[in-house]
C-alpha cells in the first residue's frame, strides 16, 4: 500500500484586492488573491508547507520539488527545501522546475518512490492586468508519501500531448498564450479521456467518485470540462476559492479535497497541462481526525497595496535609498553553517544548559567548550525582548520590523519580524520562526534566513 501519509498547504499572508488593481489599471475587479510576501519565493513557501507536512510524518527517502518560478536555475532549489526542512543528507532531492506539469510529475515520482516528500510551490503573476495576476494564487503544498497512508493510491494514468497553449521564456515576467478557443478544444477531450482511463484502471465508475479536482491553467477549459461531472464533486475546491496556483495547484486542490473527505471516500485529482495526469485515492481509516492541510488555521490575511505588490515582484521598481549595496552571503560560510543557516539548529550547552544561537565554540554564558547538543529551533516559539522599526534597513519593505527574540526554553536571537506590516508590536509578544529571504544581492545570491512571524495558537 502506498499513498499520502500527511499533507499541508501554505498560503502567504498578503492578499491583493482585485478592486485595488482595477483602481490603477481600470476595469473591474472583486475579491482577493493570496500573494507571496516581499521576503518569500517558491523555495521559502515550499519549506513552510514541507515543515508542516513533516510534523505528522516519519522520515522520507526522497524529495520532489516542483515550481514554475524557481529561485535559481542550475543550482537546486530542492536542496534548499531539503536543508531548511530538516531532512537528512541521505535524502535525495530533485527539482521539477519550469513546466506547470512538474506539479503532477512530482506527485507521480513521489508515489512511485513510495517514501517521499512531494513539495509544489508557485508564484502566479505576469504583466500588470494579466489573467495570471488576477486569477492566480501564490501557494505551496506538501504531501508525504508512505506505506501507512490516510489516502491510498488506487490508480493513476497519464497522457502527454505536444501543443502550445501557454509559454514563457526563462527569466520573463510575462506568460504568453494562444487564443482561448484553441485551448478548450485541446484540453477538454484530454480531461474526458484521462478520467475514463484512470477510472477504468481502478474499476470505478464516475458515480463512485466523492471528490474531484481538475487543475488546469486554462480557465475556460476547466469550466467547460466541469460540465461533464456532478458539480457537488467540486464543492471542497470551490469552497476554498483560491485561484490557480500553477505547479502547486494540483497538490493544493488535492489537499483541500482531502480536508473535506472521510474514510472510504474516493478522491480523483486531475492535472491537465501539456497532457493530463490523474490520480485516484481512497481515504483510509487513518484519516479520521479531519482536515490536516492547516488552511483552516491559517493566520489572518493582510492586505497589500497594488503598488507594494508590483514592487515586490520587481514590476514597479522604486528609487532605492542611498545605501551601500547589499552584501551577499558567501558560499563557503553558508556551507560551513548549513545546519544553522538553513536548519535553524542551535547548540545547547551541556554544562549550563543555555541555548547558543548561533552555535559557538565557547558557550556565551559559561564558556564551556564541549558537550553542545544540536537543537532545532524551527518549532520553538519565543517572545519579543525588544523591537524597533528600521527605516534604513536593506529590506524591501520599509520599515523593517526588527525584534530581539527570547525563545521558550532559552536562547536569544535578533532578526526581522515578517508578516507584520503595520502591526503594533509590544515586548512580550509571541513569535514563531519562519524561513524567508533577507535579501537578494547584486550577484543574484539569495540570502535565506530564519525570521519570526506572529505566533498562532495552532503553531
Amino acid at each position: 500500500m502506498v499513498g499520502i501519509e500527511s499533507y499541508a498547504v501554505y498560503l502567504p499572508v498578503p492578499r491583493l484586492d482585485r478592486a485595488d488593481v482595477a483602481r490603477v489599471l481600470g476595469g473591474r475587479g472583486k475579491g482577493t488573491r493570496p500573494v507571496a510576501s516581499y521576503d518569500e519565493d517558491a523555495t521559502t513557501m515550499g519549506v513552510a508547507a514541507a515543515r508542516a507536512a513533516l510534523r505528522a510524518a516519519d522520515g522520507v527517502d526522497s524529495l520532489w520539488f516542483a515550481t514554475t518560478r524557481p529561485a535559481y536555475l542550475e543550482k537546486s532549489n530542492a536542496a534548499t527545501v531539503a536543508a531548511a526542512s530538516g531532512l537528512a543528507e541521505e535524502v535525495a532531492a530533485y527539482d521539477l522546475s519550469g513546466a506547470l506539469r512538474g506539479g503532477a510529475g512530482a506527485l507521480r515520482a513521489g508515489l512511485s518512490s513510495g517514501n517521499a516528500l512531494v513539495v509544489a510551490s508557485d508564484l502566479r503573476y505576469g504583466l500588470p492586468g494579466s489573467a495570471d495576476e488576477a486569477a492566480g494564487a501564490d501557494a505551496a503544498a506538501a504531501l508525504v508519501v508512505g506505506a501507512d497512508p490516510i489516502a491510498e493510491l488506487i490508480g493513476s494514468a497519464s497522457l502527454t500531448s505536444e501543443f502550445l497553449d501557454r509559454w514563457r521564456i526563462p527569466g520573463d515576467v510575462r506568460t504568453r498564450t494562444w487564443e482561448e478557443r484553441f485551448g478548450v478544444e485541446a484540453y477538454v477531450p484530454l480531461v474526458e479521456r484521462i478520467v475514463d482511463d484512470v477510472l477504468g484502471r481502478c474499476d470505478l465508475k464516475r458515480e463512485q467518485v466523492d471528490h474531484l479536482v481538475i487543475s488546469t491553467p486554462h480557465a475556460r477549459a476547466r469550466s467547460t470540462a466541469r460540465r461533464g461531472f456532478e458539480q457537488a464533486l467540486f464543492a471542497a475546491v470551490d469552497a476554498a476559492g483560491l485561484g490557480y496556483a500553477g505547479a502547486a495547484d494540483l497538490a493544493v486542490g488535492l489537499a483541500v479535497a482531502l480536508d473535506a473527505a472521510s474514510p472510504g471516500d474516493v478522491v480523483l485529482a486531475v492535472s491537465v497541462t501539456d497532457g493530463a495526469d490523474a490520480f485516484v485515492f481512497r481515504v483510509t481509516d487513518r484519516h479520521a481526525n479531519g482536515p490536516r492541510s492547516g488552511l483552516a488555521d491559517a493566520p489572518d490575511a493582510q492586505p497589500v497595496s497594488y503598488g507594494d505588490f508590483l514592487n515586490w515582484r520587481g514590476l514597479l521598481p522604486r528609487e532605492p535609498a542611498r545605501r551601500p549595496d547589499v552584501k551577499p552571503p558567501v558560499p563557503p560560510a553558508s556551507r560551513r553553517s548549513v545546519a544553522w543557516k538553513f536548519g535553524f539548529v542551535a547548540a545547547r550547552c551541556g554544562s549550563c544548559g543555555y541555548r547558543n544561537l548561533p552555535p559557538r565554540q565557547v558557550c556565551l554564558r559559561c564558556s564551556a567548550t564541549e558537550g553542545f547538543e544540536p537543537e532545532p529551533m524551527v518549532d520553538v516559539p519565543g517572545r519579543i525582548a525588544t523591537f524597533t522599526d528600521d527605516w534604513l534597513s536593506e529590506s524591501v519593505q520599509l520599515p523593517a520590523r526588527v525584534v530581539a527574540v527570547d525563545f521558550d526554553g532559552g536562547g536569544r536571537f535578533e532578526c526581522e519580524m515578517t508578516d507584520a506590516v503595520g502591526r503594533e508590536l509590544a515586548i512580550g509578544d509571541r513569535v514563531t520562526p519562519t524561513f524567508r529571504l533577507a535579501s537578494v544581492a547584486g550577484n543574484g545570491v539569495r540570502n535565506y534566513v530564519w525570521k519570526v512571524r506572529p505566533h498562532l495558537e495552532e503553531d
Partner: protein
Amino acid sequence: MGSHALTTPVAVVGMACTNFGEHWDRNVDDLLVEATHGALGSAGGLGVGDVDAFWLGSMISGVSGLTLTRPLNIAHKPVTRVENMCATGSEAFRNACFAVSSGAYDVVMAVGGEKLKDAGYSGLEMPSVPNDGTPPVLSAPAMYSMIVPAYARRYGVPEERIKEAMTHIAWKNHGNGARNPRAQFRREVPKETIAAAPALAGRLSVFDCSGVADGAAAAVIVRAEDAHRYTDSPLYVHALALDAGSGTGRNDSDYDYSDLAEASASARTAYAQAGITDPATQISLAEVHDCFTPTELVLMEELGFSERGKAWQDVLSGRYDRDGALPVNIDGGLKSFGHPIGASGLRMIYEMWLQFRGEAGERQVADPRFGLVQNQGGSPGDLVSAVTIVSDRRP
C-alpha cells in the same frame, strides 16, 4: 593581577583639532597633516622629528601606520595604526599614553582622523567580514533605538517621557555646538522641530543621531614630570580604562537592552584609578559618546551621574545642560560636533584641553576639577567603551 593608574603619570602638552564637517575639498591626508602639525605647534613648536612614536586611529580611512607617515613625510619611526570601532580615537590615545609612561619613548603622539564623506552615503558603512548572511543587519540607529522600549519597560516610564529626554539631549547638544566654531552643526534647533521630525528607526529621528563628518585631532603626550618643558598648562591623565564586552548581549536573554554594562565597567575602573568615589559631584564636566540620544541618556546612569531609572528626569531638569551642575557634551558632542570615527575620542579630549586651560570661550566651565571622556564602539550588548579622566592637576 589588576588594573592600575599609571605608575609614571603622563600629560598632554599639545593638541589640535580640525573643524569637523563635510570637507568636500580635503582628503584624510589634509586633515591628518593639519591636526598633527597643529598639535606639535601648540606643544612649543615641536617638529615631527622630535616625536619618538605615533599611534594613528582610523577605522576606514586607511590601513597601517603608513596612512600617517606618507602625508607627513615621517620616516623611520614606530607608527602604529589602531582600531576599536567608534572608540578608535580613545584607543590611539590610551596606547600612546602607555608607551610614554613605560619609559620606552619620551615624546609620543596620538592622531585620529577619518574621511567619511567620500563614501557617498549619509550613514556609516561598517567594514564587514564575509559571512553566511545570518548575522542580523540593522542600521546603527535601529540598534540603539532598541534601548527605548526596553528602558521604558524596565523602569515603568512612558516612552513619551523618554522621547522628551531624548529631545532635550538633542536640543542641548545642538545648542552647545552652536557655540563651537569647530562643530559640524552650528545652529540651535527648537525642541518643537526636533520632536516633530520623522522617524528613522524606532523613536529616533535624524536629530537623535550623531553627525557624519570628516575631521582629525591629535595630541602630544609626555611624562608628567616633563610636561612643563613644553607648555605652562598641561592636561594630566588620571585614568585610562577600556572595557570590551563579550559581544554576546544580542544573543543572551539576560541582556535587556536598557543598559550599557561596558560603559559602567570602564567607568568603575577609571574612577578607581583616579581615586574618584562620587562621580556625580567630583566630575565637573563630561564628554560622552552621544552617538544617539538614548545612548547619552543611559550613559548618565552608567557613569554614575544619575540614579538607575532616573537619568531622564535629570536630563529634563537641566542637570547636564551647559549651565547645569554637570555639563555634558558642552562642545556639542557627536550630535553636533560630528563623528569622524577615528578622531572623535581625541576630539573629546581636545575639549578638555581647552576647558582646563581656560580656552573654551563662551563654553568655558568655571574651575573644573575632573573631566571625564567616555567613547564607545559597537551597539547595545556588543560594545567596547573607553573612559579617560583628566585634570589640570598632576596625579
